[in-house]
């Protein structure tokens, strides 16, 4: 076991991250009442995506850990988006 320095996140940083996540949740619920037609889902997914990025970066410590985890995570997300894109490409032109 290597006794390398571990990054210790402060309580303050955890509170700030939580605050940001709760704020985005409030925004997400609030914008639901706006009539944005087909952009509804896009906006909701953008907010959810931002929340997910915050959780991954700070709570899941990707910012401070070995970069390989962040690279793998991005690769998995790209793979998923690619599958989503290919599936819809198929469905849209049937």
């Amino acid at each position, binding site marked *: 076991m290597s006794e390398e320095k571990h990054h210790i996140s402060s309580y303050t940083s955890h509170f700030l991250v*939580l605050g940001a996540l709760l704020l985005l949740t409030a925004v*997400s*619920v609030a914008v639901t009442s706006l009539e944005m037609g087909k952009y509804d889902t896009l906006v909701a997914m953008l907010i959810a995506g931002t929340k997910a990025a915050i959780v991954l970066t700070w709570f899941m410590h990707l910012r401070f850990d070995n970069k390989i*985890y962040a690279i793998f995570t991005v690769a998995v997300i790209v793979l998923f988006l690619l599958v989503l894109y290919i599936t819809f490409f198929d*469905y849209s032109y049937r």
Partner: protein
Amino acid sequence: MEKNTEHTTHVHRDDEGDKLGMWLFIFTELLLFGMLFLIYAVYRFRNPVAFQLGGEELDVFIGTFNTVILLISSATVAMSITAIQRGNKKQALMLLGVTLFIAVVFLVNKYFEWGAKIEYGFYPGSEALMELGHGTILFFGLYYVMSGIHAIHILIGIGLFIYVVRQIQTEKIHSTDYIWLENTGLYWHLVDLIWIFLFPLFYLIH
């Protein structure tokens, strides 16, 4: 993941390897839920109105409440790691107690939410549901499967938290050996991560 070349009597530890293993598991989980989200996307694309009406049947208040408490529990578990790293056992146990409590509350809310729907006759294969359109059947089918698999993850999380709390109490997890707590935290954040997407896709469509 470094090679242990010295022959010592102490138990072999590989925290980095443990963490890598946890992340690999998380990736398989992301793909598992990813495929469910893919199914959701295709069915919603083909049944937009039914999904919209189905979403309106769900209680936005319960959904928002569960989102908020789950986010708070993610923060408390992250803080418990800070506490253990600083050698503050009591604070770590208290924070994990809060996390555990929230996990139970989340499931209790799910019980009431599902209970009300089932009482209303809305459950997979029910007569009331089968009389409705194909799209509605798909929406509620996905609702039960996806929030159900998520709820099973919460249940497993509760088991992990109980184990970790006992390990801290018996000093098996302490300020220089806390990978179990770290990995349990990662697992819990994953559960939160999935809910972050389930919430708007089921409760906030209108």
